[in-house]
């Protein structure tokens, strides 16, 4: 199976995603240059973290217009599995593949540390290898990670099981203290209605190698692998794990 990792000029977690896929998961990965229009036949696209265009204006605002994004949007709209991490999540929102927006952290400062995450929906193509409600420890590293959306949008996300990860404390509770950036309802990651586009602020690719002593992020990648393997034996993207509460 092959992952495509988009390289914007200011991507800086592209190599980490590459290592997570190749060394952590043992699968193939290929970089997709932002100026290209060729998706190289990949099964999954990752929009990695970083500062795609210096994050000038708004994080992700300019990246959305990169040449490769035309193909990425078509891929995602056609049901292709697309994972946006951190800056990738911001780009997915700017590109309207996911609702809402990510704004400056409530504390106004960049924050980098491990957070507690609860898997709110273990029935997606990205989380099938986790347990429902499982608590993970995954690092964040961002200055603009506060998820905001209209209340109606938030209600819809909740009702459809599309809030996939939430910031929680040591007891697994989504408290204000556990919320590192002021995100609405402690939301750390969401999925689109089709169940094939996931964005999250924390960095699973940074905790997907044995040597680093924490493998909590690897499940995202194994889930994708198992989804693709399952669909290869069934009949294409339509057979991807559905979304639903």
């Amino acid at each position, binding site marked *: 199976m092959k992952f495509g990792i988009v390289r914007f*000029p*200011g991507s*800086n*977690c592209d*190599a*980490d995603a590459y*290592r*997570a896929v190749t060394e952590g998961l043992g699968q193939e990965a290929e970089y997709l240059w932002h*100026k290209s229009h060729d998706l190289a036949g990949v099964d999954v696209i990752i929009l990695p*973290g*970083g*500062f795609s*265009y*210096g*994050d*000038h204006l708004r994080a992700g605002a300019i990246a959305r217009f990169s040449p490769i994004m035309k193909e990425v949007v078509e891929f995602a709209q056609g049901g292709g599995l697309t994972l946006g991490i951190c800056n990738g999540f911001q780009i997915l929102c700017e590109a309207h593949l996911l609702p809402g927006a990510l704004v400056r952290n409530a504390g*106004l*400062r*960049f*924050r*980098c*540390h491990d957070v507690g995450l609860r898997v709110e929906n273990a029935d997606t193509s990205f989380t099938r290898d986790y347990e429902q409600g499982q608590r993970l420890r995954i*690092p964040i*590293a961002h*200055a603009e990670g506060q998820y905001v959306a209209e209340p109606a949008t938030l209600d819809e996300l909740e009702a459809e099981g599309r809030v996939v990860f939430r910031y929680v404390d040591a007891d697994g509770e989504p408290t204000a203290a556990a919320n590192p950036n002021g995100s609405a309802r402690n939301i750390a990651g969401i999925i689109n209605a089709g169940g094939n586009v996931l964005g999250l602020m924390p*960095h699973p*690719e*940074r905790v997907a*190698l044995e*040597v*680093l*002593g924490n493998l909590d992020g690897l499940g995202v990648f194994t889930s994708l692998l198992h989804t693709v393997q399952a669909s290869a034996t069934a009949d294409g993207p339509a057979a991807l794990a559905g979304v639903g509460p």
Partner: protein
Amino acid sequence: MTEAVLDPKAKSQGEEPEITAEVVAEHGLSPEEWEQILGIMGRPLTIAELGIFSAMWSEHCGYKNSRPLLKTLPTEGAAVVQGPGENAGVIDVGDGWGVAFKIESHNHPSAVEPYQGAATGSGGILRDVFTMGARPIAIFDSLRFGSLDSPRSRYLLDGVVRGVGDYGNCIGIPTVGGETVFDPAYERNPLVNVMCIGVVPLDQLIRGEAKGVGNPVMAVGARTGRDGIHGATFASVELDEDGADSRPQVQVGDPFTEKLLLEASLELIERDLLIGIQDMGAAGLTSSGAEMAARSGSGIDIDVALLPVREEGMTPYEMLLSESQERMLLVAKPEHEEAVREVLTRWDLQAATIGRVTDDGMFRVRLDGKIVAEIPVDPLVDDCPTYVRDGIESPDVIRARESDLDEYGSFESDRAVQDALETLLDAPTIASRRWIHEQYDTSVQTNTLVGPGSDAAILRLPAGGRALAASTDGNGRYTYLEPRVGGRIAVAEAARNVACSGARPMAVTNCLNFASPLRTEVYYQLSEAVAGIGEACSALETPVTGGNVSLYNETGGKPIYPTPVIGMVGVLQDLEQRVPSAFQSPGDEIWVAGSTRDEIGGSEYLAAVHGVVLGPPPSLDLDEAKRLIDFLVVAAEGRLARSAHDCSDGGLAVALIECGIQASGGPLGFEADLDAVSVDGNVSEAALWFGESQSRVVLSCSEGAGEALSSAAKRLGVPLRRVGTVGDRATSCRLQGSGHHVDVSIDALHAIYESALPRRMSEQVGLTA
């Protein structure tokens, strides 16, 4: 090619200012130096030429006052691949890999504009590393500020931390360590030193050379504006009290462009398309051009009309001296000029061929073909006069050092001990730096095995299963009280921090932050501190591979403490042998290695609790320091210890509590008997609890493993004594010694330690455009 004699009047755009004695003085050149320059040139100079000399002969580029001292430092060792003189030093870490590293100061710019000053400081040192062909894997920031009680210090800390953070975070280089010290001595003149470490396949190492007649010289990256003109000279004069009038155009950093430069440069180097490459740092095009030519004994002929500029009407003088950030000068292999251009274009970078390499030894600058400056490279770069001055120790310092400290030696009650302990844990110099390092991306690149908060940071190396440990250290207060000892301790503490993590200390980069060397007492500090650094580096077999000198750190006549900062790197042959600094599990035995002496001079205890900076700093026996390091490495290799933490600011009591507070699964209480380390009983109460005797380490090992640890210590001649046992979360922190007892919950101490910085910084408004 030689052209007709220069007519200075016709050379620059617009009016050519007359070069009067006053203009020369404004350029920071003494009348004698000016005579020497006229002698070299044998004719009147153009204003552009004056600018070039002034920059190259500034303290910053020419090391006028420090070069003779720096020459005394040991620079050779089996692992050294590149010593001082290049953009960065390089050591061999095995399997064909090198580690490039260097430290640089950006003190004056940070005093004027903390955010941009710190950001551009980070940018400069990153370029020094990746222009060696190395990919940066870590940043360290060594910072000094005044007391956090002052709004200005809080403003500076806030801006500097955001500046360091935003720059490295954006590019994706983890900032994994550093130091942050607060003392009124730095109130007006903060110190911002940044170290960058990179990894490079040794066969890909490249240098800042300009070889091969006719080869194209290219200016790459950001366009040139009027930023920081005379920044290099500015860094070499003391700040005005108001700072405002002499304020040059502030340099603004753009980490996004730097990221493009980084990726493009590494691609160019990897594909072997270049002859040489150098950062346009201090003194911009002037120093990069002249230094590249000097290194290869060639000449360089450039036309500044070809330089991409950001502003209209810039004169050659301005273009030559601009310190616009994120620019590099490179010499391409002629057959690859197009390929070079193609790579740069792909990374959306400007590239302009501005001239050629020559063999006539001249640094020649033209404007639209007409020569505006023509200076022989060798004297320009090498003949900068150096000064060996007389150093005389200040009587005030002698008096402070020789003060009687008896009145501070004992405690009235157990409560007084606890109060002192709590004051120390709340002291910004000791308290948790979480508020700082959580603003830094510490885990990007997935190499960080140990990030900030430990004695040394540890990073995976590409070379098979190895890891790198690094630390920055320097104690200005010690150096003030006794400069030679302060210099030695800076090296020894850095080495000890690295060894605590299980690594063998290998090599050093250093940043010398001092006041004006024209003062005899400051020159004394400088020469003594350098001597101390040299002695320690020789004894510990950690050669110096590079560094930086920042002088004139004084404002309104108030000098900073002399502050040598040492960046030490070491290697763990097996990354699994790394040793954490905090306690691991209840029931583990606690041991202390090293000798506790009757020393409280220069301690954080005296400063934080009694508000005085007095007495001699702790002594440092270099043999003892070396034996301790050997012991720590042996203990790590043999997996004998479960934790090791250096005993420094705040002494033994604070070190023990830090080991408990920082336990990774949450704080662990413990009990410890300090009397166990006081063998001869001649140690005062205060020295026992809070003295900062050197070469001491708090270790822990699993129950019953103490014997193996002891026999290793004995074999290596290191005193090692059992002091206590690790407890659990519910255990309080129970310390006793010299007849005093303290029994406090570890959670209460943890709360003090963690809240010290956030409490003081909570109202800081971080405003950035």
